[in-house]
């Protein structure tokens, strides 16, 4: 089972039993999710209210995190932006996990020609960088959240399906599967009722880590102006909008969304890694 997840020795110190870091990250993620869920009630200003007279003002009582080049409140945009910034990766992870597990289980359980066809065709996706695939699809379907999410979902699918396939292969050869077979269970029953639940924690841990990567990729797309529509508050988009502010010497409205992205991604990684560790430890 240890073959399953890519272990990164450099992260050992983060993962080791210093659970306060894990709790901190879990708490941070909880905070972000709460902010995203209750954004309309929590944001102090309308995130899209333009106030050109007050552009690039520093932190003040009314605007604790300052305003951007168009005079929009940074705090409100960060809070509202958490919605799209989390919803996008969620879509990517759900899509890639569901489709990847289906493909991986079919390939690993059936084997033979089906395995060859599925494994080779998903490996073909590896040949395209995920962002490039997303750029291609966005350029066809125009900007919006659906197109990049589907594109990244397809790009992330092979990682999930490859992991699932190796897990299913290991699980299939365990004697209890044969024991269920001689009790008269069909292959499908064993697969759905026993193999799938047994491999689920590992796959879900990997998906948690994938969430962070998907967030970076989508923020990157937004930064390039290809993700969410122009006026929608989004962390990647905010970095893009803040570019001119940096040149004018007011970097705060660009740096804050960067910090939000980095912290969220790190938090997802720490939580996912720790989950994966717990799963691996239990299997041993």
């Amino acid at each position: 089972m240890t073959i399953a997840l890519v272990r990164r020795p450099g992260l050992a110190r983060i993962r080791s039993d210093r659970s306060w870091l894990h709790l901190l990250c879990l708490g941070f993620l909880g905070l972000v999710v709460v902010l995203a869920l209750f954004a309309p009630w929590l944001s102090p200003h309308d995130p899209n209210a333009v106030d050109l007279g007050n552009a690039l003002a520093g932190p003040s009582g009314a605007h604790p995190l300052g305003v951007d080049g168009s005079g929009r409140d940074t705090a409100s945009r960060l809070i509202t932006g958490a919605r799209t910034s989390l919803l996008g990766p969620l879509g990517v992870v759900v899509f890639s996990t569901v489709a990847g597990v289906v493909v991986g289980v079919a390939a690993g359980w059936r084997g033979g020609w089906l395995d060859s066809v599925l494994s080779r065709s998903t490996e073909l996706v590896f040949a395209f960088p995920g962002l490039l695939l997303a750029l291609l699809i966005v350029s066809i379907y125009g900007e919006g959240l659906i197109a990049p999410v589907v594109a990244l979902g397809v790009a992330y699918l092979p990682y999930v399906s490859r992991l699932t396939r190796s897990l299913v292969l290991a699980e299939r050869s365990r004697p209890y599967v044969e024991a269920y077979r001689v009790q008269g269970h069909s292959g499908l029953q064993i697969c759905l009722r026993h193999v799938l639940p047994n491999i689920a924690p590992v796959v879900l841990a990997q998906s948690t880590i994938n969430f962070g990567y998907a967030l970076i990729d989508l923020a990157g797309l937004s930064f390039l102006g290809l993700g969410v529509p122009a006026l929608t508050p989004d962390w990647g988009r905010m970095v893009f909008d803040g570019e001119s502010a940096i040149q004018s010497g007011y970097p705060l409205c660009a740096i804050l969304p960067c910090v939000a992205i980095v912290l969220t991604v790190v938090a997802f990684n720490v939580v996912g890694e720790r989950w994966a560790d717990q799963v691996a430890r239990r299997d041993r």
Partner: protein
Amino acid sequence: MTDTPAGTPAADAATPETPNPETPTLEIQGLRLNLPGAARPVLAGVDLTVAARETVALVGESGSGKSLTSRSVLRLLPPGAATEGAVRVQGEDVLTMNAKQLRRLRTHTAAMIFQDPRAAINPLRRIGDFLTESLRLNADLPAAEATERAVRMLDAVGLGDRVLGQYPGQLSGGMLQRVVIAAALMGDPALILADEPTTALDVTTQAEVVGLLGDLRDQFGTALLFVTHDLGLAAAISDRVYVMYAGRIAETGPAEALFQRPRHPYTAALLRSTPHLDAPAGRLAAIEGRPPSLREELTGCPFAARCAFATQQCREELPPHLPVRGESSRLVACHHSEKLADQLAGSVTHD
């Protein structure tokens, strides 16, 4: 392989719908099994019968095909295996069943007990779940009835209903093997196949499990095919014994007679190499050489290369299974069985 073991009635005429008492619970006739990449059949014509309520031991060393023989009864064959012959459970040929019949056979008629109980149970499911799942899903029994039966079976194997809510990791190996035996009994099978069920257990637990299997046979009237490499165990538990070597039955007969007066040099050599506590200390007797490799074809008697009594005839001619003179229930596949009888018996008791 047209010869059937003596003392078993011909079951060809029996129809599956009316299993009359004459039909043996398990009847294997001329079973041959070829694997891709093997030069000779892994099973080269195995004949074996288990009558109702009978306990039969299948003895042999690793690689002799004893496990494959028992697994073929549930058609649990390695990928690419090609079979010939017939394996009939209560008169129905397992090898030609469709998927539905096969599942019914596995759920209700025949059950298997595996070597390592800890590996044979899904570690993430509770015992109660493991016991009742087959009946709930494949026999459409309501959950309450299945649980009730599980409690009764657990009681029969000497466990309380507390284990229903426990996970496999919370039970000892011996308890788990009892759970596996209870699971085998859940479908009320006519035949239980036990594939070295005590190998993974320590000696005291072994004795318990073997005693339990004997009790259960008396209580539930199931036939038992007991696969083992432990001769002492085979002698203790079984009515009849089949000794297997290189995919063939070397010798068969009632347990006591076979171990008292072996008629095949291989049986005698096996008995000689069993360690005894009261024997003088020294090197353990072993059979020289190795069992024939699957990569080479065999001519003549498969045991000839390791047999102290082998002659030219042994190396060239496959010995047929012939009844032992004066003991109609015994068969032996050795050219020199008659000549060697006294010598072999002497060599065993001498130690």
